[in-house]
Each structure stands twice: as C-alpha cells, then as structure tokens.
C-alpha cells in the first residue's frame, strides 16, 4: 500500500508540474529521446525501403522473362528518375526554405522530420535537430507554407514539435483583412478553430489568418491558415470559426525552427 502511494504521488507530482509550467526538458527525458531517435529513424527508413521494394519489385514475380527484364530495366530507370526527381524536389523545397530563412530576422535552423505521430491522439512530429543546434522548448517552427507549431521537448540532437492542430496548441492570431485578434486553437482532424472573435465582427470564408506576434512566441505576420466557415448560431458571445491550416501536415519533410537571438525562453 505504501509503495502504491509513493508511486502515485510521484506520478501526480510529475503530471501537475508539467501541466502548470512549460519547463526545459529534463536530463532523463533528453537521454530517452537521444536513444530513441536514431532507432526510430532506422526503423522508419527500413520500412520505407521495404515498402518501396514491395511496390517496385515483388509484383513483377511471375511474369515472362522478357517482360521481367524490360520491367526490371524500367524499374531501375524509374528508380534513378525518382532519385533525380526527389533530388530536384528537395532542391526546390530547400531553396524555398533558404529564401524563407533569409527573410527572418531571427536565426533559422533547418531540420528533417524523423517521425510523424500526427494521426494518433497527440499531433506531434520529431525532428533531427536539438539543443546542440541551438533549439530549445517553446521555439516556433515553420515551413515555406506557414506555421507548423512549436517545440515542446528537446534533447541534444532531436526535438519534438507540437503541431498547431493539436488541441493543446494555442496561437495568438489575427484576421488579415479586418485585423481582428483572437486565439487559434488546434481542433485535431478538423484543423483549427479561431476563438474569442465577437459575433459583431465580420468574418468570411477565405479570410487569411496570420500570427499576431502578441505572445512573443511566433513572429508577427506568419501565415497560419484560411477561414473555411464562420457561424454565429451557437450560444455565447463569440463566433465559431473553422480554419484550415496553411501547412499540409501529411507532407512535412523539412522544417525551419526560428531561434530568436538573445531572447529568453517563452
């Protein structure tokens, strides 16, 4: 009974502590992330490779020899073409990121997405840069399309990003056309909701939502998303505004973390 009480109290203390304050990642958590990241990376790369092998080659078994030879050649050429295409697309993405990087006053650190956990309950992704590259908890993360989220956990060479569609995510936002300010909260698979916008405000589908820069986490003017619908029917003082995020979280590959030089942790 005493053992149970001790474990329960320790776990409650951990939960309460992390619920009330955003803290730097502890040493144990950093170690766990450091150990897990390369293993996850290897597993994901291996699985992707296996999937590619399955798609490209295994279906060829059983065809005529000639056909097999031609298809093999075709597959090799397709593989090479895919590699070049991947390289070309990566070049375009990196060039966009580089252009974006030069557009920020803050230092920006480019990182690769290792694991994407966004379709289970918690919408987070793991990236391959950590405190060794200057990243820390609370930093905003963007792509050339707009805001991705913020860092919630860091180890030396990996960080976890809370995506803006997670229900735990709140970003100070404004409507570009009317300059009305509100809070953009994640709504899971539904995207995001813009909250605390009075019913008297004019909000239309297609309105662009930007970061307002008020909380000091996200720089002002970053693209967050587009209004897809606004309803005044629900009770209360505020409208229900649905927002489609600008970033397609299913296609995240490279991101930029914005490191504000000389600033304190948000």
């Amino acid at each position, binding site marked *: 009974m005493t053992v149970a009480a001790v474990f*329960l109290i320790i776990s409650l203390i951990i939960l309460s502590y992390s619920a009330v304050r955003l803290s730097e990642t502890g040493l144990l958590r950093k170690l766990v992330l450091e150990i897990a990241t390369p293993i996850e990376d290897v597993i994901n790369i291996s*699985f992707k490779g296996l999937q590619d092998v399955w798609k490209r080659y295994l279906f060829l078994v059983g065809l005529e020899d000639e056909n097999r030879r031609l298809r093999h050649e075709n597959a090799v050429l397709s593989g090479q073409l895919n590699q070049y295409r991947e390289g070309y697309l990566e070049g375009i993405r990196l060039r966009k990121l580089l252009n974006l990087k030069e557009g920020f006053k803050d230092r920006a650190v480019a990182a690769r997405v290792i694991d994407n*956990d966004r379709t289970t309950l918690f919408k987070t992704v793991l990236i391959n840069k950590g405190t060794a590259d200057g990243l820390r908890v609370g930093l905003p993360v963007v792509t050339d399309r707009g805001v991705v989220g913020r860092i919630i956990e860091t180890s030396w060479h990996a960080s976890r990003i809370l995506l803006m569609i997670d229900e735990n995510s709140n970003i100070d936002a404004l409507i570009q056309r009317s300059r009305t300010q509100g809070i953009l909260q994640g709504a899971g698979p539904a995207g995001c909701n813009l909250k605390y916008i009075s019913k008297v405000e004019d909000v239309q589908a297609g309105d662009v939502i930007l970061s307002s820069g008020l909380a000091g986490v996200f720089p002002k003017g970053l693209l967050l998303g587009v209004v897809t619908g606004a309803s005044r029917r629900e009770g209360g003082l505020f409208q229900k505004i649905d927002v489609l995020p600008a970033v397609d979280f299913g296609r995240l590959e490279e991101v930029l973390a914005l490191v504000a030089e000389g600033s304190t942790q948000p």
Partner: protein
Amino acid sequence: MILYLLLPLLLLFLVIIQSTILDIFTLRWISMEISLTVVIYAGFHLDALRGGLLAFMLGFFLDCLTSAIFGLYTFLYIVIFYFSMMVADKVYAEKPLFIASFTGLCMLLEGLAIVLLYRFLLGADIFYAIPRIFIPQAVVLGLLSPLLFRFFQHVEVFLNAKDSR
C-alpha cells in the same frame, strides 16, 4: 540481475516499436497500445514494487516519445497497474474472456481519463477521440489481449528460467 538492468532498455524498445512499426500496421488510425496490456499483465502477476516500477518506466517512456502532456501516461499506467492488482486479488483473472473485457475496459477508462484531463487541465475538447480512437482501440486491444497475455507468460517463464540459472 542482468535482466533487471536490461529491462528499462527492453521497455523503451517496446515503446519505440509500438510507436513506429505497430502504428504503420494500423495505418496510424489507432495506436496499438501493447504497453497497456503489459501493465495489466504486470497487475495480474507481479508484486506492488516490481510491477509499479515497470508501469512507471513504461508510462515515462511513452510520455517521452508520444505524449503532449508530460506525466500523463506515467500517472495513468500507475493507476491502471494498481487497479489491475486490486481486481486480480478479488477475481480469477486468467480466463481469456475476462482478460479481453478487462483490457478493453482499461483502454476505455484510459481514453476517458485523457479526455477529462485535457478538458480540465487545458480547456480543450477532444471528445471526438472516444468514438473515433478509443473505442476501436479498446476493441482491437481487447481481442488481442488473450494472445498477448499468453505471449507474456512465455516471456515470463523464459526470463525466470534464465534468472534461476
């Protein structure tokens, strides 16, 4: 002794496999929470200290790798472990039907606790997750749990045999 030193690494490996390979098999629609069945199995078969430590470590690793609220799974796994222990003291907990129903129930309770903690700690509504994620997860995990329990029994026998040598 060496097994006890290796145990944290084995548990971490389980959580990594769970959050990568198993998620791919379920097309990332639901999460295959094998770690929960390990905690329940521990509740049925281990003592308060060893099982509590196991549940604590599993929850901690899961928090490090997947949870958006740090400490959430550590707390829930400890609660589920002691709940399982209490239940195992009062009923015969070896029948497959009981194992399946109890695992499904624990999964649902865990989901409900997550939804309520989100509501009260963060003010966020994720009630949609109950029908979309937790109920399918509870059904799948419940159906698989008798097989997983049998597998864990083999592992336990193997580890005990190694330990006694």
